[in-house]
């Protein structure tokens, strides 16, 4: 009776507190717990409330700007209203084409990003450990790094036999450099005292790498993965808009050509939600892999 009280939502707690009035001794303990739950989660509840309010305000502003077709430097004349977007959303979730666009984009992200992580993290670790590899790879990486992935589109189309491969390649490129650079940065920040401590305890090169350099770099590796995931989506959407036939970026661009303005906003929101979801996945993975950093 008492422990689930921690879990009950505020209105449930209020509802069950009323019949509890019939049994006087139990009620005070129960409400004390509820109160404590509120006190402990005060900050989180607060930001949840403010966050919801801010989103609602945003929707209202959007609604007003579009229904009154405001023209004030920017034109809201053709911008779809939130309700219109919602209508096209309810239609789209029953439309296998829309789902296929989303799935294809997710697949491209998954392949491109995974490849970038599988190549970028070990390369960064090895560059951080072996000077020669660093000296050889770093100049090339520095020259290629500032080139935005979108600028690679024409080259990618020439390099790869299929459109699909070139899009995945561009996604890969977008996330590769942030992952590489952050991993390398993490390696340079490894506390030398920890390396010496490991050596004093009999650790050899491979063990030092596995037990010290790698875990010490993990926080930066995950920073790289988070940034890399963001850039992966940017690159993917650009590539899909330019050269795609499928994918959520293509869907958004096509909506414009087909004068389906509600679908433009739907595509944008879908991209936003997917981007948010994938960075949440990385954050969760980070907490799983680095339990010592939670709190």
């Amino acid at each position, binding site marked *: 009776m008492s422990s689930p009280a921690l879990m009950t939502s505020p209105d449930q707690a209020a509802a069950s507190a009323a019949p509890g009035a019939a049994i006087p001794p139990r009620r005070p303990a129960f409400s004390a717990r509820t109160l404590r739950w509120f006190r402990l989660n005060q900050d989180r509840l607060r930001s949840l409330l403010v966050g919801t309010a801010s989103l609602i305000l945003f929707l209202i502003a959007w609604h007003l700007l579009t229904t009154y077709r405001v023209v004030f430097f920017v034109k809201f004349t053709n911008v779809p209203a939130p309700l219109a977007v919602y209508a096209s959303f309810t239609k789209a979730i029953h439309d296998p084409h829309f789902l296929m666009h989303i799935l294809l984009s997710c697949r491209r992200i998954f392949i491109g990003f995974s490849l970038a992580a599988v190549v970028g993290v070990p390369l960064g670790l090895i560059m951080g450990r072996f000077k020669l590899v660093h000296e050889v790879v770093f100049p090339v990486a520095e020259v290629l790094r500032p080139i935005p992935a979108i600028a690679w589109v024409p080259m990618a189309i020439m390099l790869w036999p299929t459109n699909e491969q070139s899009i995945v390649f561009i996604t890969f490129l977008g996330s590769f450099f942030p992952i590489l650079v952050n991993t390398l940065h993490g390696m340079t920040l490894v506390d030398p005292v920890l390396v010496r401590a490991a050596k*004093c*305890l009999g650790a050899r090169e491979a063990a030092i790498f596995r037990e010290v350099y790698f875990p010490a770099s993990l926080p930066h590796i995950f920073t790289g993965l988070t940034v890399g995931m963001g850039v992966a989506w940017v690159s993917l959407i650009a590539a899909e808009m330019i050269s795609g036939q499928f994918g959520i970026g293509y869907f958004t661009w096509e909506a414009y050509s087909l004068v389906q303005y509600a679908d433009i906003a739907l595509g944008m929101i879908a991209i936003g939600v997917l981007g948010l979801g994938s960075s949440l996945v990385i954050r969760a993975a980070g907490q799983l892999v680095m339990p010592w950093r939670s709190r």
Partner: protein
Amino acid sequence: MSQAAPDTRQGHIEVRNFALSYETIDGAVEAVTDTHIHVEPGEFVSIVGPSGCGKSTLLNAVAGFLKPTSGVVTVDGSAVTGPSAERGMVFQQYSLFPWKTVRENVEFGLKMGGMPKFERERAARTLLGLAGLEAFENHYPERLSGGMKQRVGIVRALATGPKVLLLDEPFGALDAQTRIIMQQILTNMWQRLKISVLFVTHDIDEAIFLSDRVYCMTARPGSIKAEIRIPLERPRQQSMMMSSEFLALRRGLMSLIREESLKAMGGEITDLGMQGLGIEFQGHSIADVL
């Protein structure tokens, strides 16, 4: 002191004709010169000296992190060529692996030695129990106090059963109360394990309270200025620090160190070009005032 110890006892440190200089852009910086020290098996020896005199340099050379420019460092007759698990080390900075729990930290050396998981877990638990840390075995170091971190550091260094334990100002960052407790814990462990200890500190009381012998180093370039036996009986109590014997030793060491510290600081003042200023305090030179 323990000259009569049988040959089977291990942990004899010998540093002979030792000199070490660092290569810098301005040429070689001579940190330590012409130094001879030794630690007998099971002996507790401290090194004290003014800041920058090369205490850490000497200790790091014994640990195998630095190669002497000349001279040799041997442990039980074999030359030190690099770090190894037979010489445990405790650092001034907290050096626990943040990604390992307390127990995993203690297990580390055993894991490197190839001990199976089950066995080393049990060994680590036993050791943590001896240090009164069993309740924290699953904590990450971040959640421990400074004193606990250093206690785990000592336990971790001892877990592999090293011949010698090297400590570089391990309690420097702790408050006075915690320091005293840590000194007691270290003494207990040392007596139980009969291990040789080389302990670097700048705290004279600490050096006297813990040691069988204290080396006092000169200002840079460091060498041994004096070697002092501490004949205080063991087990030592905190109350001994008020005894006349203790205070006499303290006075002696204090004046040795003061001389060297002034030399060290005099050098820096000269460097700053302050000598030419001829600052005087009520007719005394700056050295007298200090």
